[in-house]
């Protein structure tokens, strides 16, 4: 302040003028573009070439299809590896490395696969039936400790192999160079789905033996891309696999996987044309996309096959009482949840997501918001609710602890439960925990009283939800997936019967009954199935969200990305771009 007083009037004027200029420049700064910055060139047919840039919020540990089991690694694994089976764009099982769908023996126990001709690993070596067997045996070896084990326990001779009593798994037989047969102990309608999981992808033995524990950092497979470079924590670059067996594929020469890029900055980079495709948005960015007419053709919102809910520990009071659980299940105002979450979630009151066998919109015992029923169930549980001041909030009769994920989203769900259960006299105390702690502790019996939890499909079959989340077999001393610790022999029997049932219609009815029992007993208050919005640049063509694999970018093509021209301008180009020049380009 003093310094201005001491300077002459002229300087002060100039100072003010420059401030004014600054304000003008500020006003003249480009507001964020109202639509995509670059359009496609309009090619009618798929073109080869270009680089696709995508991202994820976290860091990736490695790309080993046999041990990695998360969305993030999977995004790379699907570019690098393949298995005998895969899904088409509609979610049907199709042969991938196999020539055709396998021959199944009449007793439903033996599956015989024949490999396509001329398939090579990215190293150039041809793939043989022996590689298929070696890969599965590696994945199922106790030393590898694959989380995929549970999906293959039905293989004949697996126990002997894992105990070290046999060199090989008796149920996997190499018949000739290109033929391999699998034999099961009992019929299993989920086996083919298991064979389409990344756990059953084929890897070259010599590469695994060369790198040992480091192999996840040096992936070699049969997929459309190979790993070109890896800047830890920053980005992974994939280059076209020259030995790929599908002629002309993949279309883009390179794919760049930007790591540790959280959703807000990722969205800004997307608007700026530096990211080609995004798959998660903050609420504000989501609303921006939904409201912008210019972006409307370049996003699609699609239901995820998943299930979310408030799981209550059936072994711990007060949730060992079915009436309390039912009261909770009827006190959750699912429509309000959906509104608070910007309708990015679809309310549900049953354990199977829409689209799966056994899902019925009018399933008996479907949980729904009804305070009348909720309060009646509280009374049946022995809690009289009194509301002397008549504000709809009765005096608290119970206090429970609820675990939520760290971060704003987990907190919102916690607060939603809190405000819903207040209306039936239950006080909820929230405990935010990190994801690893949540996984570890909620898998132990009698530890976590209640929690917000969810499950996303491994394969599109009801067994992947009901068997895993509610079968008593999924209760262990550690790592239980049945985090409500719900046991019901009647349900177990139904699920075991359904798993082997070969008649699809009968199987569907069995799962309907099972789902209805779970909804009735309410180990979870089922709350919603989520939706996912993918947005891409106009020059990204033929992208369709895959029904099974999240963020699967192997099939799309790039339509003469104009931005590559802009990038060549270099530093000056960036400055011009900032001032708004590129938008005036044709």
């Amino acid at each position, binding site marked *: 302040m003093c310094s201005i007083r001491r300077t002459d009037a002229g300087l002060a004027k100039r100072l003010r003028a420059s401030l004014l200029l600054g304000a003008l420049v500020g006003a003249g700064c480009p507001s964020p573009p109202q639509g995509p910055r670059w359009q496609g060139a309009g090619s009618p047919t798929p073109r080869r070439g270009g680089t696709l840039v995508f991202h994820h919020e976290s860091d990736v540990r490695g790309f080993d299809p046999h041990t990695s089991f998360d969305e993030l690694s999977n995004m790379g694994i699907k570019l690098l590896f393949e298995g005998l089976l895969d899904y088409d764009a509609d979610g049907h099982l199709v042969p991938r490395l196999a020539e055709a769908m396998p021959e199944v023996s009449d007793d439903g126990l033996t599956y015989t696969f024949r490999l396509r001709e001329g398939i090579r690993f990215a190293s150039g070596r041809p793939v043989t039936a022996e590689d298929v067997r070696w890969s599965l045996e590696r994945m199922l070896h106790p030393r590898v400790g694959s989380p995929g084990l549970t999906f293959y326990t039905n293989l004949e001779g697996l126990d002997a192999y894992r105990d070290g009593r046999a060199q090989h798994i008796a149920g996997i037989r190499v018949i000739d160079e290109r033929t391999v047969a699998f034999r099961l102990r009992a019929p299993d309608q989920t086996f083919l789905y298991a064979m389409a999981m990344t756990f059953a992808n084929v890897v070259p033995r010599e590469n695994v033996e060369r790198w040992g524990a480091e192999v996840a950092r040096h992936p070699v497979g049969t997929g459309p891309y190979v790993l070109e470079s890896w800047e830890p924590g920053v980005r992974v670059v994939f280059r076209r696999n020259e030995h790929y067996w599908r002629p002309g594929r993949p279309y883009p020469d390179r794919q760049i996987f930007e790591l540790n890029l959280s959703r*807000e900055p990722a969205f800004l980079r997307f608007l700026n044309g530096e990211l080609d495709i995004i798959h998660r948005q*903050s*609420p*504000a*960015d989501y*609303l*921006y996309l*939904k409201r912008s007419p210019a972006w409307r053709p370049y996003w699609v919102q699609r239901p995820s096959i998943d299930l979310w809910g408030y799981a209550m520990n059936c072994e711990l009071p007060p949730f060992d009482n079915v009436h309390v659980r039912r009261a909770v299940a009827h006190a959750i105002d699912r429509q*309000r949840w*959906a*509104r*608070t*979450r*910007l*309708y990015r979630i679809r309310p549900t009151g049953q354990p199977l997501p829409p689209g799966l066998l056994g899902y019925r919109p009018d399933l008996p015992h479907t949980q729904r918001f009804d305070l009348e029923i909720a309060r009646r169930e509280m009374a049946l549980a022995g809690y009289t609710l009194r509301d002397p001041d008549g504000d709809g909030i009765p005096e608290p009769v119970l206090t429970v602890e609820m675990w939520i994920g*760290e*971060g*704003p989203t987990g*907190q*919102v769900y*916690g*607060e*939603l439960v*809190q*405000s819903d259960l207040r209306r039936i006299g239950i006080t909820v*105390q*929230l*405990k*935010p925990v990190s994801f690893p702690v949540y996984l570890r502790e909620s898998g132990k019996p009698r530890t976590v009283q209640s929690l917000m939890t969810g499950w996303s499909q491994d394969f599109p079959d009801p067994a992947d939800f009901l068997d895993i989340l509610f079968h008593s077999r999924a209760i262990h001393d550690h790592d239980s997936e049945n985090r409500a610790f719900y046991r019901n022999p009647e349900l177990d029997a139904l699920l075991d019967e359904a798993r082997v049932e070969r008649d699809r219609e009968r199987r569907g009815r069995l799962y309907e009954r099972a789902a209805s029992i779970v909804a009735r007993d309410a180990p979870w208050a089922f709350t919603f199935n989520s939706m996912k919005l993918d947005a891409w640049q106009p020059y990204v063509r033929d992208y369709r969200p895959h029904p099974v694999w999240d963020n699967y970018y192997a099939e799309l093509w790039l339509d003469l990305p104009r931005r590559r021209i802009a990038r060549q301008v270099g530093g000056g180009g960036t400055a011009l771009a900032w001032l708004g020049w590129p938008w005036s380009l044709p």
Partner: protein
Amino acid sequence: MMDPRAWRRFRRNRGAIVGLALVGLVNAVAWIGPAFAPFDPSEQLEGGTDPQTGAPVPPGTHLAGRGTLWLGADEVGRDELSRLLAGTRISLLVAFGATLLAVALGVLIGILAGYAGGPTDTVAMRSIDLLQSLPFLLVAIALNRVIDRPDLWVLCLVMGGLSWTTLARVMRAKTLQVRELEYVQAARALGAPAARLLLRHVLPNAIQPALVLGTTLVAQMIIFESAMSYLGLGVRPPTPSLGSMLHSGQQWLTHQPVLVLAPSALIVATVFGFNLLGEGLRDVLDPKD
């Protein structure tokens, strides 16, 4: 204990006056404000989110029969203004609690170390070295995890228990200085017991730096409380605090900036105010520095 000329010096110190005004304002918001809150800060209002999009309603939305949401709603439909008032109170409460604890510890340990000397002094000073060499936030997070109870007083305890070190050093230095003054020597020669010496002669002399440092410490504590709450280690939801409101508001920055700007403005005002006041106090009380 206070120089009569001090108040005149204080009044002439523009920064100190601004600081005092800001501190007064923030305290008014925190202690009187909640009484005027239009809504229950935890109530998820039916009309708080837009029925079409689900987005929080903008500032100034009027709810028929309920009142006006002057700052709009947050993402679960709670009145932002009411939360801001309640949140300021919580943040200040934590900051004051932690500061009181830190000042008490700092004064006690500093004076004892300075007066006793010898091994007591060495142990105290080396523990301070040790504590100061640890990154504050990291230790606070670790402690919070170990105690594992996201409550107000735990937060105070952790933050206060970690931030008394600077004050203790200053108090020790001051005590060393005062201890050798003639009248203290004289009192000792007359056989005054140590407790009396400390309370009557050493403490009053050393209290000024405690006042100054304590004031700036409040500002630091506000920042730490915000940081802890921002990391999800603060108070238990749905209790609001400035940091936790910032935490949940950040995803709405581009859509509803007030959810970030309002708590930020209060944090800035509080920190700025306490810092200015602290510096003003130092100028006034200890013109030699």
